[in-house]
């Protein structure tokens, strides 16, 4: 669920999507429905639910099975960034019931009153299965509008044959004698410089931003590019180290069927993103939207979502159910060890100094190429 979606990544994405699909067992619908414990809470026969989502952010059969269980039809539409979701709803909800905002955009969406409050009393499956670790986040401390869905991290993916010492710190990334690829996303990159310097990753102090820019300029001599193509830069041997999202590395391992690459959240910490699921303000069918959100948290349904997307779930029931593929569950790049989860930080909105960040990022790109 990343904001950078270029055609190029679509090409790469299709390839990895195909490989993820083949890794999955294919049960018939009857067999799948038998494994789903969740029951449709009331008679919704013939009704329609409108879902506005990221592409490839659900299981292969998630929608199909929900339609069968409640005898409803689901209309799907897709967006490619938190900002496009927010803008679409600001212009007036065209009829979406369920939406999937990513952490920081909740701040804006709550401020603009774009969401319906969530009544957790109507979500027994969510209450039974969600890991409380993912509740009470900074963007919605009382869980008024947010139900946890999937999460992911940003970190260091590297080729173990080229980087002999296991990476534990961002400083090793900066000091590496070989090609490194950064991400073209200033919040992530500046937060890394800030935490390495021992500063607040969400600093709003213009001096800190300049410090971070200069730090990256001084320590960016080994950078060859800003992610034109994500994981293929590692696979093709172009770079030894790639700063990227954990699902990216998992998909690379799946493709190469090898053990050549590792992923780590350095000791200084790195960014986490949590995807939520919510009901859009002005939703036409709130009871059915609640039913759908509750259904998503059925352990079997949620396990299939994680199996398809390779994003770790916020659902403890799914993790304990045994339905999640072994290679995902036991992969420290996907389900991080607890001590790494504790190092994660959110990239919070910094609207007041956004221009300073954007300008510093342009300057970094311009002067790094000299």
């Amino acid at each position, binding site marked *: 669920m990343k904001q950078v979606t270029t055609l190029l990544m679509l090409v790469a994405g299709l390839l990895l999507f195909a490989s993820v699909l083949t890794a999955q067992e294919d049960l018939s619908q009857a067999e799948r429905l038998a494994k789903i414990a969740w029951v449709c809470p009331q008679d919704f026969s013939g009704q329609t639910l409108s879902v506005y989502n990221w592409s490839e952010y659900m299981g292969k059969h998630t929608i199909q099975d929900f339609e069968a269980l409640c005898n409803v039809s689901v209309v799907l539409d897709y967006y490619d960034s938190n900002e496009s979701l927010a803008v679409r709803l600001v212009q007036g909800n065209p009829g979406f019931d369920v939406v999937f905002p990513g952490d920081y955009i909740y701040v804006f969406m709550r401020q603009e009153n774009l969401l319906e409050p969530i009544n957790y009393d109507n979500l027994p499956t969510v209450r039974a299965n969600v890991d409380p670790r993912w509740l009470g986040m900074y963007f919605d401390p009382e869980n008024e509008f947010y139900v946890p869905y999937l999460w992911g991290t940003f970190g260091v993916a590297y080729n173990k044959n080229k980087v002999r010492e296991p990476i534990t710190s961002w400083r090793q990334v900066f000091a590496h004698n070989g090609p490194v690829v950064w991400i073209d996303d200033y919040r992530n990159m500046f937060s890394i410089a800030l935490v390495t310097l021992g500063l607040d990753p969400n600093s709003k102090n213009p001096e800190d931003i300049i410090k971070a820019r200069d730090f990256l300029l001084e320590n960016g001599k080994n950078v*060859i590019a800003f992610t034109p*193509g994500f994981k293929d830069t590692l696979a*093709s041997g172009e770079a030894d180290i790639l700063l990227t999202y954990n699902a990216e590395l998992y998909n690379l391992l799946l493709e190469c069927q090898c053990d050549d690459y590792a992923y780590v959240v350095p000791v200084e910490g790195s960014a986490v993103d949590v995807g939520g699921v919510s009901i859009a303000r002005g939703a036409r069918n709130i009871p059915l939207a609640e039913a759908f959100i509750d259904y998503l948290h059925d352990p079997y349904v949620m396990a299939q979502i994680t199996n398809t997307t390779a994003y770790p779930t916020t659902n403890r029931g799914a993790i304990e159910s045994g339905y999640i593929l072994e290679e995902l569950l036991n992969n420290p790049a996907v389900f991080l060890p607890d001590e790494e989860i504790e190092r994660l930080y959110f990239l919070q909105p910094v609207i007041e100094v*956004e221009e300073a960040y954007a*300008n510093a990022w342009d300057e970094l790109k*311009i002067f790094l190429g000299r």
Partner: protein
Amino acid sequence: MAVWLTTLTRRHSHWLLSAPAILWLVVFFIAPLFIVGFMSLMTRGTGGLPVMPLTTAHYDRVFTTFSGVLNRSLWLSFVATVITLLIGYPMAYYIRTRKNEWVRNIALFLVILPFWTNFLVRTYAWRFILGREGFINNFLLNTGFIQEPLPLLNTEFAVLVGLTYGFLPFMVLPIYASIERFDFKFVEAAQDLGAGNWSVFWRVMLPMTLPGVLAGCVLVFIPSIGSYVTSDLLGGTQGLMIGNLLAGQFKASGNFPLGAALSVVILSLVVIPIAFYLRFGGREA
């Protein structure tokens, strides 16, 4: 009624006929141009959106901070144009002078053939050819010519390769059209009058095919200046071009007015070669 209508259409037919084109130009060319021009003078608001008041700060920034990348874009586009010309002219000449029509048609077909594949995919292929563990480096390493892989990808060189490769057909085709119209009897005439091969080329053939050459140069230079995909995929940090910085301004949390100012500057840079072409090349072409 009918008479009135006939008179109207007869008297004003040139207006009625050009109305769709004028409407098109106003709605899709002139209006957007003014919007971009105006936006470039606005201030950056929340999320990068343009707000009042007006300012020229973005232009200051374009001509100071961004000037290095602007110069690189101009330089790379210029070099790419020269290289495509040096390859394209002999190529067009060679194709035109084949006696067998079949050979000519097949050669022309081969020039156009790459267009049948997506530009993105063709550019991407260069990553595999130029890469650190790509085709060229592997070949040179295996044959022992080099011990360490050459840095080919993510350089200005890679961008030049991509631009030359991508835009060569735009150079070959107009030149071919010019040479096709060129009457080779002029060559015989010049030779009869005692001109040597160089003289024939410089003083007879090149001036008479100049419209095609200028058209080709314009068609290569202009898309090169604004190129985005080529430098994004092949340039890395070293081959960053102005198109990449421009695109970044229109992403979430960018800077729309700055992006608009960059667009206006690029547009002005593009207008210069077009004006040149209209002044010197447009007469016969």
